[in-house]
């Protein structure tokens, strides 16, 4: 009890200085950055779970094409649930069997949801909103009301995407990339074009992008203007630097996609031909269109966003690791400055590589030379970031908390993702590997056991600041190990399938391409043999790997149960934090009461040193917070000379 009292003794006095808002203003239409961060994070987690559920249905169809989804009958017999399930998915699956149409819906929505409604809202919006203002020592974002609008626009986009499942046409089924002409001409016969899954996807994306723009302007303004006294640019934690870069990527890369979405909508709704060439056919008929448009223009606009988007997905994970690793190794981040410059370089280069997604469109030598150079160049800052995090471990005293386990696994997992990108950087090799499962394995290693592990680390790390309680350590480990095993069982076999010529987006998992899928090798023999030990008959060829991957997905699913329990139960049942800084960290967010009240800080906070001063020689504790003049004593604002870089503080 005394620890709890110690935690809050100044918080309560301070709360009187602010008007505590009512329930709706506090928890729903809140302008407080912490509430908005938590809203974004929980929405993102739920969408990740939903996107994963869609993938489980897809993996079932891939491993067992033509067989009914397990539990289909049971779901259909639960009142209420059966209606929702049937309207969303069931009516597209006659007898519970996934067909090409449903698979393409699931695939398009899996990609869209994971990227735009899962990882970005959690990794960027969730963490940046909750952590960044605390970490730069300010009371809120620069534009709190804009921030609230950002979340609610995002919310509308999420509702729109989910609602599109219930439309007569079902949700969109043309890949998360929405390439024209496929996206423009699929189910063209629908009379009410406004009630079409594709239209709803485009409109939802317009909301989503608008939400991102509001968020990114806010983050940029806040970081530039509202840093605490003494928090110079080079005293700012790498977390804020990485999020600052991400905000610029969102600000500059998203508008071209918004334009592309509107032009594609116009092709659909108003009969224009921005992306439709002369003479285009559909269903054996020439379409009645003016023509003269270019499908390649759409691809350029799409990838001009979608490549920087990759770094929007990955930089938040680096941001989180840059905090979790020093805190759990008890030593400074190695190469902080190199990481900042590498991050800025990465952000800049990410705008120059987009057409490496288009190597097979018929690119000439000049274009391909340019994009191969930029693509290889961007690997240099990526390797610097990863190397700095790995070198940071050297000489540490590593505490394997759940967040550190996830951070530790991120390093080799992201390493595999990065390395397997290397062959794909070259047009000549791309002739063999383009759009095969090799590519799927590559980018999922980057974003699944890569980014998502980073995000999990962040959840475990900052959960105590948000709730005042620590997530259960044992459940955390029970979450980590099955996740690690599951992820690798899912994505490693994909390299073997890709090398064997398996291409993506086959709802029957390649069964139809018998000549390709009947190939066996040592890995398929091993897979078949191991399943055989358990009495399961799995084909001794590349199709057998589909079963292995689906099993991996089931293990991954089971591994999320401890996390979900831990996340919700620890709010009330977790171990209470011993003080406001339970991990003995150095950055400013740990100087706030726990959880931080409206307005955050109870004293005028100043930063007097760099962000990662752990195990400083001559200091009698292994962390030396940014805000302390001597261990345990907060620095006086007057002690900090007004640095030109530090802006005024409200």
């Amino acid at each position, binding site marked *: 009890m005394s620890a709890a009292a110690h935690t809050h003794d100044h918080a309560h006095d301070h709360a009187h200085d602010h008007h505590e808002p009512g329930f709706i203003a506090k928890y729903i239409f809140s302008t407080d950055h912490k509430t908005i961060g938590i809203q974004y994070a929980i929405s993102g987690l739920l969408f990740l779970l939903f996107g994963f559920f869609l993938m489980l249905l897809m993996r079932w169809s891939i491993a067992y094409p033509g067989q009914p989804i397990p539990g289909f009958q049971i779901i259909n017999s639960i009142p209420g649930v059966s209606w929702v399930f049937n309207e969303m998915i069931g009516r597209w699956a006659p007898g519970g069997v996934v067909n*090409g149409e449903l698979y393409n819906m699931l695939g398009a929505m899996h990609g869209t949801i994971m990227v735009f409604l899962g990882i970005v809202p959690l990794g960027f919006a969730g963490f940046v909103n909750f952590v960044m203002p605390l970490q730069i020592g300010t009371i809120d974002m620069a534009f709190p009301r804009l921030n609230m609008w950002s979340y609610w626009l995002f919310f509308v986009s999420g509702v729109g995407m989910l609602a599109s499942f219930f439309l007569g046409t079902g949700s969109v089924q043309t890949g998360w990339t929405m*390439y024209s*002409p*496929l996206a423009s001409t699929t189910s063209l016969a629908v009379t009410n074009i406004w009630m079409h899954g594709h239209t709803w996807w485009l409109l939802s994306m317009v909301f989503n992008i608008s939400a991102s723009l509001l968020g990114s302007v806010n983050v940029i303004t806040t970081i530039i203007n509202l840093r605490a006294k003494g928090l110079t640019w080079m005293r700012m934690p790498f977390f804020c630097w990485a999020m600052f870069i991400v905000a610029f990527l969102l600000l500059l890369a998203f508008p071209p996609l918004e334009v592309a979405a509107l032009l594609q909508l116009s092709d659909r709704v108003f009969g224009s031909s921005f992306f439709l*060439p*002369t*003479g*285009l*056919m559909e*269903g054996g008929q020439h379409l009645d269109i003016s023509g003269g448009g270019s*499908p*390649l223009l759409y691809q350029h606009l799409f990838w001009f966003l979608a490549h920087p988007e990759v770094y929007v997905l990955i930089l938040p994970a680096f941001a989180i690791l840059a905090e979790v690793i020093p805190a759990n190794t008890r*030593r*400074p981040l190695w190469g902080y400055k190199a990481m900042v410059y590498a991050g800025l370089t990465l952000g800049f280069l990410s705008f120059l590589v987009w057409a490496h997604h288009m190597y*097979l*469109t018929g690119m000439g030598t000049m274009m*391909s*030379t340019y994009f*191969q*150079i930029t693509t*290889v160049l961007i*690997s*240099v800052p990526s*390797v610097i970031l990863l190397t700095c995090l*790995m*070198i*940071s*471990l*050297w*000489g*540490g*005293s*590593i505490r*394997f908390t759940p967040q550190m386990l996830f951070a*530790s696994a991120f*390093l080799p997992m992201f390493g595999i993702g990065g390395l*397997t990108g*290397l*062959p794909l950087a*070259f*047009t000549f*090799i791309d*002739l*063999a590997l*383009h*759009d095969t499962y090799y590519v799927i394995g590559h980018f999922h290693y980057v974003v699944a056991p890569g980014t998502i592990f980073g995000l999990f680390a962040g959840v475990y790390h900052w959960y105590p600041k948000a709730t005042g309680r620590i997530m259960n350590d044992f459940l955390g480990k029970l979450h980590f190990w099955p996740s690690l095993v599951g992820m690798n069982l899912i994505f490693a076999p994909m*390299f*073997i*399938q890709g*090398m064997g*010529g398996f*291409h993506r*987006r*086959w709802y*029957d998992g390649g069964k139809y*391409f018998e*000549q390709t899928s009947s*190939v066996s090798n040592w890995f398929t023999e091993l897979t078949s043999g191991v399943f055989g030990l358990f009495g399961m008959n799995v084909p001794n060829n590349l199709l057998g790997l589909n079963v292995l991957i689906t099993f991996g997905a089931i293990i991954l699913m089971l591994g999320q149960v401890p996390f979900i329990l831990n996340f919700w139960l620890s709010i009330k049942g977790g171990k209470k934090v011993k003080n406001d800084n339970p991990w003995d960290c150095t950055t400013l967010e740990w100087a706030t009461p726990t959880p931080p009240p409206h307005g955050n800080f109870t004293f005028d906070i100043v930063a007097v040193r760099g962000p990662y001063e752990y*195990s*400083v020689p001559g200091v009698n504790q292994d962390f030396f917070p940014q805000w302390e003049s001597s261990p345990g004593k907060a620095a006086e604002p007057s002690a900090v000379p007004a640095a030109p870089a530090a802006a005024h503080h409200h």
Partner: protein
Amino acid sequence: MSISDINIPFGITQNASEHGGLVDHMLGFVHWFMLVLFIGWSAFLVYVFWKYRASNNAAADYHGVRGHATTHIEIGVVIVEAILLLGFAFPLWSHQADEYPTSADTIKMRALGEKFLWNFQYPGNDLMLSTWKLAGVTPSNVTGRELNDPNGKDDFVNPGTMKLPVGRPVIVDVASKDVIHNLALTPMRSAQDACPGVKAHMWFKPVKTGTWDIICGQLCGPGHAQMKAVLEVVTPKEFEDWSKEMSAGAKAKNDTAAAAPAAAPAAH
């Protein structure tokens, strides 16, 4: 043992084209590089996780690594990447993209994708392929052949199967009628997007006889997973006989059709 042997345990599919050996060689080189880096990283991680765990090392070291080893590794990575670009990627791609075969025995053909099949147009006995346009496609003229082009009189279309002779280079015009497809010939280490409105090409030279799947490598709709065609590489003699017969049949049919007034181009 050759460099590309490392691709075998990764399950690489059989190569059957002339330039495919170079693709595999370059991929092998990259895979070795990746393997070395991955083993290096893994060994490092296993060591530090064991050596610097809290129970083994109670006090952390403020300074950590002090030497320049990481800089040297980083420079090493950059050098290997430069070699990959300058020594492999640029010359190989430039050979593939700019130096199309010109020898007299080159086969020029067209692959026109539609949901969910491939039409293969062959040049016939004159070895000359007709021009075409998307707007000219009709039910009776599935590849939109320019009907007035004399080169096209003996051209024939073979849907679903791409038959080729071993040992002769082939240039394929790749296009589509409706949505974007991709003519993926993995054993030939070749693939090309078939995009409506884009005139794209690819070339390769089969060096092995055999039968393989032709895969559509770009999402094209609900039937995408079943958009299969067959790649059949046969002996030159077998190909010649087949081509002559098909070409003669097509010419006879075209001559008859030209005589009849009804065979006008489509209204569109």
